């Protein structure tokens, strides 16, 4: 009796989870409209090259960024998130980025606690004039995430089908 059960158990095989072949990280960049987004535009107009892994979402102010957005991103497609706002004191909405900073630190603690590496969630100040800095930031984040490897693993056969 017991043995049978055992065999059955053995016969259940765990699906092998793997990263997509030639995996490239996906990074969700949430930028405030007045500083960082403008900064990223400047990076473009000054043709400064950076890795293509980042996907940019525009929000009015970093204080609009709900922790939910970070969690959702990591939960679905993103391997890492970058939130960027105005420099402290330069916030278009006077104090927004201070709230953002505090809220972000808490969120980060939480995500670290549940097991996300701290580099998967990053925060930076980029002003509308700091095109080059934005490129630097993206480079760094992308490298960090590449080091950490993929966050989402899939059943092997998913890829075989394709």
């Amino acid at each position, binding site marked *: 009796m017991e043995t049978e059960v055992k065999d059955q158990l053995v016969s259940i095989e765990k699906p092998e989870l793997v990263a997509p072949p030639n995996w490239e990280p*996906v990074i969700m960049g949430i930028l405030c409209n007045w500083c960082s987004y403008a900064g990223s535009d400047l990076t473009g107009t000054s043709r400064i090259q*950076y890795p*293509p892994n980042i996907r940019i979402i525009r*929000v*009015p102010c970093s204080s609009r960024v709900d922790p939910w*957005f970070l969690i959702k991103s990591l939960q679905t497609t993103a391997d890492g998130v970058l939130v960027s706002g105005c420099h402290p004191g330069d916030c278009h909405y006077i104090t*927004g980025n201070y709230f953002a900073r505090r809220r972000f630190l808490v969120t980060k603690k939480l995500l670290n606690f549940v097991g996300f590496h701290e580099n998967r969630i990053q925060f930076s100040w980029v002003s509308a004039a700091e095109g080059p800095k934005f490129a630097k930031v993206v480079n760094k984040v992308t490298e960090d995430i590449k080091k950490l490897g993929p966050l989402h693993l899939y059943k092997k056969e998913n890829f075989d089908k394709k």
Partner: protein
Amino acid sequence: MARVGVFVCFCGANIADYVDVPQVVEEVKRIKEVKYAIEYKYMCSDPGQGMIRDAIVQYKLTSIVVAACSPRMHEKTFRKALSDAGMNPYLLEVANIREHSSWVHQKDKKAATEKAMDLCRMAVAKSIANEQLHEISVPVTKRALVIGGGIAGIQAALDIADARIPVVLVEKSPSIGGKMAQLDETFPTLDCAQCILTPKMVDVASHPYIELIPYAEVLELQGFVGNYKVKIKKKASYVNFKTCTGCGACWQKCPVKVPNEYNMGIDKRKAIYTPFPQAVPNKPVIDAEHCTMLTKGKCGICAKVCLPGAIDYKMQDEIIEREIGAVVVATGYDMWDPAPYEEYGVGRFKDIITSLEFERMVSANGPTNGVPQRPSDGKVPKNVVFIKCVGSRDEAKGIEYCSKICCMYTTKHTILLHHKVHDSHAYVFYMDIRAAGKGYEEFVKKAQVDTGTTYLRGRVSKIYKKGDKLMVRGEDAQIGQVVEVEADLVVLATAVSAPKDNPELARLLGISYDKYGYLSEAHPKLRPVETAKAGIFLAGCTQAPKDIPETVSQASACAAKVCGLFAGDTMKKDPMVSTINNEYCSGCQNCVKVCPYGAIVTDEVPIGHGSKELRTVAKINEGVCQGCGSCVAICRSMAINLAGFTDPQIINEIVSI
């Protein structure tokens, strides 16, 4: 079911060279909501916009995605295109595939293309959740408040009033005119300050659109841009301006003598007084501090001699309330008190005076009838030493900054001295001569040549008394020698400092001020007349030291801003503001705390339908809300949403990759 139209732009070669546009189009077509997708050379061009308009009609599209340059570039353009086609402009989304893809991934076309696809998907996803939004229109009270009746306030008031907009002009002293009314002549043209100022003062008094409230101060300001309520305290003047004829019998007879502020205390005025002959309004007020009738109940002469019986010792302060739409702050500046300069013997030596005192002396209507005198013995000074940067550029004893006007007014003073006392000689101790301005350097040169003034480059280190002379010691760095000048009179070019009650005013207006007490502009370069608070503007020295031409231009700039604000009956406002769903609001009021604009207040609503009991919820004043979204993120019960950036929209973006 949403019907999205996607328009991908080549932007000439800018996008097309690095992103495979047709492939992008193919890709987006695979999204089921996308009913129409097409690429074009220049979407922003007229034909491009035309395509959008036509497609909207032809395919009954419910939202539009334009994949092109940054939304900061052409969002408005395309929104217009939508509304032209009778579609709500806020149903547009822009995928930024130029700045964010083609231009920054020029070495890797494949990756750039894939990214462009993702960006498009995100935009499509977001646009599906877009809602129709309508510009908010806020009612405006078309009346402006001007605080301060100096040249800045006068100019602003006149310019606004000339645009047929009512103005309330509040001045704290009994007459308008401010510092400029104390000046004799003005640099660099040497025209008489009185002659150019007094006509303006009269205009203010007689202007049908200006309500002048002298001898008053602002107590409180409530509301928001276009809809402020102001409380003004009108100090009791103890003289009924309606019946007073301004004959002057009262102050001629008044027995009480008080140091005369207008003349920097060089001579005396009476306890009932008009600050100066050309005062506007030209009605006397009683100085309650010194009037013996008001302090001890003795005297009452003025009442006796006043034929119209305008004197009223019982008069009380009155509170005036006005509804206004905009505020111009023009509280001017204070003269810095040189007391900390002990090494100069300030306070010990009578014959050391400040520049404004000198200005009064050389002024024709001044206490010495235009001829400078030594306060100690009334002699006419022959050797006059002018010391610049007293308080300015002196972190130790004064203020870090350069007061900007001292170089020029000192130059003017040397000329005036030369005019009034022909056999006099002026010595100027300076560190730099800062004559940046139209005709300024020429003015300085002319002064130096005409008056033969001796310029000595160095800061004065000590002044001491020798007989009835003042010995002024300083280095002349030009020759590297210490020099001592035997002076009859020493004039200190004292610094310009912020009005001492500016911080208090700033607090009650809800605007910010810098470490010196000057009121802060919204942007040092591009928004020098606005404050961070919408509808409040700055004119003149209250923002930073400046000379008369600059002050006047800033005042007129304020007027232009106010007129712009009042251009329509209502103010159009971007609809991307927060909205609250009372059903969800738990009334925790976290949003109230985080809102930088105080746009959120609490409100009472019935617990349930038709119930009597009330519960607290947050209420957003969309007139004030600037749409930062702080409240949305802080809201635990997700009762708040920010139009244009709602949670569904952003989450859609996130999950669409």
